[in-house]
């Protein structure tokens, strides 16, 4: 079992100063790995100070674990260096690919849910875990197109990967909701298939409607349907470290603290019989 870190927030430069001066009551921060893979200066200065006062976890976007291009060892080496510097409680990235042929699309490109992709992922995840000397967390991503070639459901794929590669999951409940609309499946059924022992962290975020589908923008508050799914997930998995992500239209910290209180309430009510 992974330790429940409580209720956390994505660490964003807009909030650095407020965090240090006001020491808000937040249980942990999730820092975007790539933002700190720089030689020095402000980003690392603030990360050092904030990590001295709060537990930190890292969340990357460029591991490209599902890509058929070779693993980027320069990237992994720098991540390893950052882990040694900051000593995060864990490191996560996304269950996706971000490019081939040396190109980085800087997007979380979806994988088809096939045996071939699973085999490929299992090898790569163990390479990464061996190299970093720790289990990693992989997050389910939002996607907009449905692969005809998929041989299983997204949740089957996720569970199979976690079991076979011996990695952990970062379950983004908003992404489950987004995909349940985009690919027309039952979000509750999805969550029921995920065993609690594999879920180390949860993400909550907002999104934007676009006609018949939803785009995962992280630009708005969490919607009621996602809160409802979260409550159900809490009951099913017990208390899991939960984080609110906001990447665009970032409001002042106080506003996000109110949303974090809502997470706390959900967690408490899930404990009630």
């Amino acid at each position, binding site marked *: 079992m992974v330790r429940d870190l409580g209720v956390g927030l994505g660490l964003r430069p807009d909030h650095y100063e407020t965090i240090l001066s006001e020491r808000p009551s937040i249980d942990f921060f999730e820092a975007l790995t*790539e*933002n700190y*893979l*720089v*030689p*020095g*200066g*402000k*980003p*690392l*200065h603030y990360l050092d100070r904030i990590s001295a006062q709060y537990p930190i976890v890292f969340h990357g976007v*460029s591991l490209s674990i599902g*890509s*058929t291009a070779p693993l*980027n060892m*320069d*990237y992994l080496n720098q991540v390893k260096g950052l882990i040694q510097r900051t000593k995060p409680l864990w490191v996560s990235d996304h269950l996706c*690919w971000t*490019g*081939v*042929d*040396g*190109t*980085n*699309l*800087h*997007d979380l*490109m979806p*994988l*088809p849910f*096939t045996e*071939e*992709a699973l085999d*490929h992922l299992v090898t790569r995840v163990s390479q990464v875990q061996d190299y970093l000397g720790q289990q990693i967390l992989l997050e389910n991503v939002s996607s*907009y*197109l*449905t*692969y*005809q*070639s998929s041989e299983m459901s997204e949740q089957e794929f996720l569970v199979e990967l976690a079991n076979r590669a011996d990695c952990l999951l970062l379950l983004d409940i908003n992404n489950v909701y987004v995909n349940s609309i*985009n690919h027309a499946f039952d979000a509750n059924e999805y969550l029921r298939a995920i065993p609690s022992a594999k879920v180390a962290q949860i993400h909550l975020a907002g999104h934007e409607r*676009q*006609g*018949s*589908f939803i*785009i995962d923008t992280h630009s708005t508050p969490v919607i009621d349907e996602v809160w409802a799914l979260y409550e159900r997930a809490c009951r099913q998995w017990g208390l899991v470290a939960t984080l609110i992500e906001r990447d665009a239209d970032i409001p002042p910290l106080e506003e996000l603290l109110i949303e974090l209180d809502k997470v706390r309430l959900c967690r408490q009510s899930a404990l009630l019989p």
Partner: protein
Amino acid sequence: MSKLALLQESFQQLVLRGHGPAIELFFGANAPDFDARLLTYSNGYRARLVEALGVTYPGVQTVLGSNFESTMMKYVEQNASTHFSIRYYGRDLSQFLANERDIPFHSMLADLAAFEWLLAEAFDAADDNPVGMESLAVVPAQDWGEVSFEFRGALRLLTTHSNAVQIWQSLKDDGEAMDPVCFDQGMDWLIWRKDLATYFRSIEALELRTLLAARRGASFSQLCELIAAETNESEAPLKAASLLRGWYTEELIQAVKVP
């Protein structure tokens, strides 16, 4: 090529070029809003890179105004991102703008982009510590001529042939850009970081030559010779000492090397 590799190759081509070989093998094209869903990927790719360029090049963005997006789109079409971090996207923007002869004041914009790229480099350059004048106190008098200096990692130099840096400053001060002017004569700039803040100033030709020599490892007496050759012999050591004092005050030096 494996099925997965073919899929990724196709999908990436689709995002980058708008057409991917055999893409119909992977998607059911009769899904509702299929085209809009595809565009989420290809438009998203472009929007993210243009946004990243705006973060690194806020001055270029303000000066180009409503032409920023279309100009950056052209850059994006010609330059894929190859780094794992989007922070390093846009390295060649200055060169690109220099060649965009149809854009008004393109050479000033090229200078401005070069300046903003170097500001970004100084911003997150490796941390090192400055030494003060006291580092010279330990040098015995007879060794003075032989000492040399190690400069800090964030230090950058730039030559402009326009008032791009002044325009950047005017944008910062009151949000208004001055009129662009180009010069035949180059103007040199020094960019560096003190604690967490980035600084810049213009640098005169003699100081620049002295600084470049010092950076290459020239000793104090070699710096005096260089200055003497351009001014006059008797004032050279004084001039060298005064430049050095300035560099110390600005925290440009991280070590003194005594042979």
